């Protein structure tokens, strides 16, 4: 789950990290009121789940209320990398002397937590990593041992932060690590972490991704789930508990298991088609879950054919076939369907499908054949 900057800052503030006072605004009027409450100058910042806000014109300095109004007007509704701005964060402006970068994430190769700190902040860290890798000080933290103050201090010194920033940085980084672990974050990033003109280290931005698997011990994360950016199709699938990712094509894909679903998307591409989605219905493939999956795909106006790719393991072919037939009785389908059913009792399953087959409900012997048939159907309907 990705947090908006303002949510990330609230999250950081809970762990005692210094963030600027600010208010959320959904309209220009609210932005003006927020700025009046805070007192100008303020920053007007687009709240979107994507990077590159500054370059896109989504972050502006406002010296006066008039400027707040002008910027808010321009930024609301702005398209930043396909994300439409619906929320603004109005924040008291800071006097910036220097900009740093700090983050914690999991290093999957090392199987340890990785902290990255650089005196060259405010820019894309990927660019720094590429052009000047030695400007990033890295620390690997064993989750069992945690981050000690001594190790943290050495790390800050290695990053060559100026003397006057060291104490403030150590304090913030220890809290950042605590927030990262205690909050079950996949990523916590501060870019920039600033040194103010009056010598204080301060959090100016917040990028936080939380592990959705940890919701059982963080009840409030349900609220963050409500503000995730999803397209309509993804919202509908999410509400039915399906693993769905919207793509751009015309062939709807339904498979059981994440790997098989990913592989099905690949094969559709390989035979010259374009998948409309990734959809994993899990192991069971019963009538209810199949109905939900077909409904989600049926509601996608771009879909012209559907490829159902099911491998029966523990769930037998008969059960799967009956589930599909039941689901088809419940949903009025707009597009033709190709089914590839394999694995346990596949022959029995195919026999159940047999009397229902037609031009718009076909079976395929293999995954490749199924993809080819579905792609042909999608193209045929274009004519």
């Amino acid at each position, binding site marked *: 789950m990705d947090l908006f900057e303002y949510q990330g800052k609230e999250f950081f503030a809970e762990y005692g990290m210094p963030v600027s006072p600010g208010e959320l605004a959904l309209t220009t009027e609210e932005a003006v009121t927020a700025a009046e409450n805070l007192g100008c100058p303020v920053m007007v910042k687009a709240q979107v789940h994507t990077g590159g806000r500054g370059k896109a014109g989504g972050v502006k300095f406002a010296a006066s209320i008039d400027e707040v109004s002008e910027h808010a007007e321009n930024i609301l509704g702005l398209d930043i990398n396909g994300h439409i701005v619906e929320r603004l964060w109005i924040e008291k402006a800071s006097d910036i002397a220097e900009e740093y970068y700090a983050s914690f994430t999991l290093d999957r190769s090392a199987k340890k937590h990785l902290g990255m700190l650089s005196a060259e902040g405010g820019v894309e860290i990927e660019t720094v990593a590429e052009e000047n890798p030695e400007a990033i000080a890295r620390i690997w933290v064993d989750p*069992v041992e945690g981050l000690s103050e001594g190790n943290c201090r050495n790390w800050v010194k290695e990053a060559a932060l100026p003397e006057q920033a060291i104490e403030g940085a150590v304090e913030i980084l220890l809290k950042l690590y605590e927030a990262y672990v205690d909050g079950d974050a996949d990523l916590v990033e501060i870019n920039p972490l600033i040194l103010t003109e009056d010598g204080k280290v301060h959090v100016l931005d917040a990028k936080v991704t939380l592990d959705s698997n*940890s919701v059982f*011990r963080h009840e409030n994360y349900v609220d963050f789930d409500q503000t995730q950016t999803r397209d309509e199709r993804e919202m509908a699938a999410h509400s039915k508990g399906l693993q769905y990712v919207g793509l751009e094509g015309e062939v709807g894909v339904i498979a059981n298991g*994440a790997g098989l*679903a990913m592989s099905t998307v690949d*094969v559709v*591409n390989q035979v010259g088609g374009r998948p409309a989605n990734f959809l994993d219905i899990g192991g069971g493939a019963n009538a209810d879950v199949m109905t939900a999956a077909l409904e989600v795909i049926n509601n996608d106006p771009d879909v012209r054919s559907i490829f159902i790719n099911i491998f029966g393991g523990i769930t037998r072919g008969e059960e799967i076939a009956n589930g599909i037939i039941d689901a088809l009785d419940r949903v009025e389908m707009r597009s033709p369907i190709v089914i590839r059913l394999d694995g346990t009792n596949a022959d029995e399953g195919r026999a159940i499908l047999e009397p229902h087959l037609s031009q718009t409900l076909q079976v395929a012997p293999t995954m490749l054949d199924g993809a080819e048939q579905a792609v042909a159907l999608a193209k045929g309907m274009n004519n």
Partner: protein
Amino acid sequence: MSIFVNSETKVIYQGLTGSQGKYYGLLNRDYGTKVVAGTNPKKAGTDVEGIPIFASVAEAVGETGATASCIFIPAPGVRSAVLEAAQGGVDFIVAITEGVPAHDEALFYNQLRKDFPNVQLLGPNCPGIISPGECNIGITAGHIALPGGPVGIVSRSGTLTYQALHELKEKGIGCTTCVGIGGDPVPGTSFIDCLAAFEADPETKAVMMIGEIGGSAEEEAAEFISNNMTKPISAYIAGVTAPPGKKMGHAGAIVSGGKGTAKAKMEALEEAGVKVGNNPTEAGDLMAEIVSQF
């Protein structure tokens, strides 16, 4: 022969009294796995279809001599279940449960390394392990696997593991052991652990590897293969066409910052001498070619 588990392996099921644990525990027993005990502190002294329930793994190990444990505990309890299994004295732990927080995985992975270096953890979020004809621990449908070898399988994905077993069986090719390592960020067992074990297993003559996008496990495996493997390998990587920044079902399956792409993984493996197919069927065909030369 097989790796990690065989016909002698005695297994404890943590969570045998739950619906999933009972369902798969009994299926595994029907397959021939030596399912010797279950654990549940509240139901100690009872049994599940003749399988005795003990209060703890330690007690179950003491009474039965089990050396492996299979975890069917809901995600919130997996961290303590893994540590209980290691403390209880088993040396192979299979954690099937999905949805375990990444921080928990990182924590118990490192805890095992430090305090129980001889314990091998498989999973979490994996289908388990099957040495066809000998032992099946987890949720794989046993009959889709043909016993006997000469191929060992290691896979990051559940249903693609079944697909791989199926492709080989269709061609009459048997399997020594099939290990599903799971698609989570911190898998207890890596490709490299399995490749090393297959290399050392005299019955395994070739290895089929199923990877997917995200992380760098396949690239690390490629390096290991270059330096250490003498046995031929075929591979398939799922997610060739996955868009960057989107999680494709598995927590680990995401392409971010241009890293972890299927293309990079396929190239690394090809450079290491691995025969890489564009889909599971092709990888199966490549394996059939390899086996036909034995």
